[in-house]
């Protein structure tokens, strides 16, 4: 089902392209040796190069180039062996040199693609136009003093990858799915931590609308610097609605840059095309063209980790998990790794079931991430092993898991300590059942006269009497036998 917005004149289709700024994971900045670490006291991660002092020159950080190439490989994109850095000239107080070093005419990465999964189970391919490296600017702080602004240059010069999508996105849901998938790929490869709250991933959203069937694009607006996936989705909806109203009122949409205000749920004009900067791009004469070797690209490719799509396919094949399960298990590499550690040497399907159910619930409850999970993969595997070899049943296992989370003890230690080993002694089971049946003569009669549903009642009562430790299969079997006597 295509996403449509219904206006006064009928249905409208939306056309969206995203420009994602992803901060490169690296020790140092793109062109200086200063730390690229987030946080830090203002102006402590700043070199003279970052501050634009006279005579200072940029020197390209090779690791940032490697990160861009790795990302390009993850996006199945063309890797350009020749690329170039340009200066984008504009004045602002947090841009010390008066220009941002970026790649305008010759980006390092060309066309690629991202496969996104939609809620209805379908998959769509969103084209990537290009990826280029550029410097981040510093931060202007306007709310500390009534008349003065403050500048923090810690972020100035940090490497960003600008990843530009084709205008292939047709719904807010697809935009969200694209961003989640992109973030997943970046995190897998380790080139961006994808942390939108800290600003290490931000998006500029290009939105236009048109009538279904139109082949040309109408004028678009760019919504700048949206910093969460939810806001991206909201801003698209709000902006599309606004544009539809403009068109339907007989007006025309002007190409402009807008801001999204999530509190008022509206977009506002930031500057029109006429006020747009003339950035006077030209090749940065302080830097040589960036020429990389195919063999180096090949080396980086060989060292890439398994990417989400490949991992999903393998998990489904190797462990027999469902498409849905594989998608959840592969959201983060650490989760998939955790799963594989559990699944090797345990019932793999059972492992998937437990991870998606009780284990994630336990993580949520304790507010922990997979990296600092209160239960190790080996611990969970041991617990599942106890189920598989009938030492405990599934219900008891839930109790044991809670205890593991609480105490950090191993599953077998808890089973021993609490005496939870399940009863498989048929004599003990039979005597428990006989007591239950004797105490519930009336129910037995009802059952025998055809009220089959009461079987569950007898199971429950038996398990309760056995403090949950009865082997469920044996309890069922014995109950059936005694009730038919």
């Amino acid at each position, binding site marked *: 089902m295509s996403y449509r917005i219904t206006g006064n004149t009928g249905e409208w289709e939306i056309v969206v392209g995203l420009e994602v700024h992803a901060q490169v994971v690296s020790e140092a900045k793109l062109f200086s040796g200063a730390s690229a670490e987030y946080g830090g006291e203002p102006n402590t991660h700043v070199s*003279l190069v970052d*501050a*634009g*002092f*006279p*005579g*200072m*020159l*940029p*020197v*390209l950080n090779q690791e940032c180039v490697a990160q861009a190439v790795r990302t390009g490989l993850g996006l199945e994109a063309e890797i350009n062996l020749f690329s170039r850095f340009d*200066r984008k*000239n504009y*004045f*602002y*107080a947090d841009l*010390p*040199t*008066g*220009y941002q070093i970026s790649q305008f005419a010759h980006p390092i990465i060309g066309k690629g693609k991202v496969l996104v999964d939609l809620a209805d189970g379908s998959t769509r391919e969103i084209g990537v136009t290009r990826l280029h490296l550029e410097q981040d600017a510093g931060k202007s702080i306007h709310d500390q003093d009534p008349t003065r*602004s403050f*500048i923090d240059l810690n972020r100035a010069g940090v490497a960003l990858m600008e990843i530009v999508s084709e205008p292939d996105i047709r719904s807010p849901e697809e935009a969200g799915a694209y961003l989640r998938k992109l973030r997943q790929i970046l995190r897998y490869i380790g080139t961006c931590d994808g942390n939108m709250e800290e600003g290490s991933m931000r998006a500029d959203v290009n939105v236009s609308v048109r009538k279904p069937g139109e082949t040309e694009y109408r004028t678009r607006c760019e919504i700048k610097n949206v910093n969460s996936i939810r806001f991206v989705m909201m801003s698209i909806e709000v902006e599309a609605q606004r544009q539809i109203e403009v068109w339907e009122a007989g007006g025309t949409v002007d190409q402009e840059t807008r801001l999204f205000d999530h509190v008022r749920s509206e977009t506002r004009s930031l500057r029109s095309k006429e006020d747009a900067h*003339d950035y*006077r*791009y*030209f090749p940065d*004469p*302080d*830097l*040589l063209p960036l020429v990389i070797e195919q063999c180096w690209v090949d080396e980086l490719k060989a060292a890439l980790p398994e990417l989400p799509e490949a991992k999903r396919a393998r998990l489904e094949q190797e462990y027999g998990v469902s498409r849905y399960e594989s998608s959840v298990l592969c959201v983060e590499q650490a989760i998939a790794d955790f799963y594989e550690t559990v699944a090797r040497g345990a019932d793999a399907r059972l492992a998937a079931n437990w991870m998606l159910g009780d284990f994630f619930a336990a993580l949520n409850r304790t507010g922990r991430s997979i990296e600092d999970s209160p239960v190790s993969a080996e611990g969970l595997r041991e617990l599942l092993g106890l189920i598989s070899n009938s030492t405990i049943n599934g219900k008891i296992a839930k109790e044991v898991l809670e205890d593991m989370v609480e105490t950090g003890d191993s599953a077998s230690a808890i089973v021993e300590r609490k005496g939870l080993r399940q009863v498989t002694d048929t004599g003990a089971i039979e005597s428990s059942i006989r007591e239950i049946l004797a105490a519930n003569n009336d129910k037995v009669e009802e059952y025998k006269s055809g009220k089959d549903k009461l079987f569950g009642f007898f199971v429950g009562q038996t398990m309760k009497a056995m403090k949950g430790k009865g082997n469920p299969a044996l309890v069922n079997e014995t109950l059936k036998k005694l009730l038919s006597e």
Partner: protein
Amino acid sequence: MSGIHDFTLASARDALKARKISAVELTNAHIDAIDRLDGQLNSFITRTPDQAREAAKASDAALAKGEGGSLCGIPLGIKDLFCTNGVRTTAASKILGNFVPPYESTVTANLLKDGAVFLGKLNLDEFAMGSANLTSAFGPVENPWKRKDSDAKLVPGGSSGGSAAAVAAGLVLGATGTDTGGSIRQPAAFTGIAGIKPTYGRCSRFGTIAFASSLDQAGPMARNLQDCAILLESMAGFDPRDSTSVDTPVPNYEAALKRGVKGLRVGIPKEYHVDGMPAEIEAFWQQGMTWLRDAGAEIVEVSLPHTKYGLPTYYIAALAEASSNLARYDGVRFGERVSAPSLDGLYEASRAAGFGEEVKRRILIGTHVLSSGYYDAYYLRAQKVRTLIQQDFLKAFENVDVLLTPTAPSGAFAQDEKPTDPVQMYLNDVFTVPASMAGVPALSVPAGLDARGVPLGLQLIGRFFDEETLIAAGHAIEQAAAFHHRPTIHAGVSA
């Protein structure tokens, strides 16, 4: 040859090593000369006599132990475009205010490492933009030379006018210059000294205030080519902090002096016979050819067909880069700030007050040629022409080893003869700009006086990283020309 002011850099070096003179004596004599003469010449923006004396003492201590680098105890002046740790650096502009860099440029660090003694920071055209040293915020520099029958103040050329005047007047034994389109060679010619613009990438640009990054190149200025060779060997070298510096070994340039020019093929670019060139310059050029031929070289006419596009493309490429390079002087982080109620207001007020006329003119032109709608017609086309100019040289060097031309179309002119049309002023660079555009090395040697008694220089242009052949050919001219004239204002002349 008797007085302390008769030393060349090389002979001073030898005298210091032989302990015939102390570094302190030598330094004091030069500080004294600066005190006596520079009130008139104005070649220094900042003098550092105390630091110089300290450095000289340290040099003497090293020399006494038989230690010390190639420049141990040699008094030098530094063009005030090189950042010097703890010493005010101005680029001859008001906009830098009292900026004191907390770092040392690679070139000056190399000189210090070899034991040089810095006497101070030398005047220049503001941000190295000019050909007469008339655009400095610290006032014009006067050429120590005078015309025969006139007391008119002559310009020393530019932009390294302070360096040229200080060397010529004997205030320093050598100086650093920078050359973007002729800023070492033209003032060297105007003041009767030698200067080398090395191959682009030979000397690091780290810590040198940028004018046009793809053209700027530091080089030595001194009384003769031997002195320049000694200085260049110290200044040059690969620097990982400058991505455009080239990792190729630094040869022994001084040794190249002795190579001679026998069998050397010297090209005469026919396009350099420009319209309106004075007959005496043409004759002077012919004299240069004769000297080299007599020394055993072969003179060959060559063609550099894109020469006439050199100046206009230079003024597009260089000013485009300059407009961007000078954006950092905004009054926000260092230098002079003129406060205003808005950020744009602060920029406008600070830059309006901080930059001089010529710098503003060049920023405007550079901004214009990069503007959307003009970029292709100006900047992009200039880049293409630049490639053609470079190909001209590469093609010529398939047939010849060096090129010989006049350094400038005239000798030094008087301060009040300054052309009123800025474009007329730019013509001073007509012979020097093409080599800069190509990135190839070039030098100027003093080789004679014009009819009015003002020095003239000859330019030699060479292959990439072949400064040695240039030095050898230049030295042959030096020997034949036997240029031993001295300017009117000189440390060795008692008042």
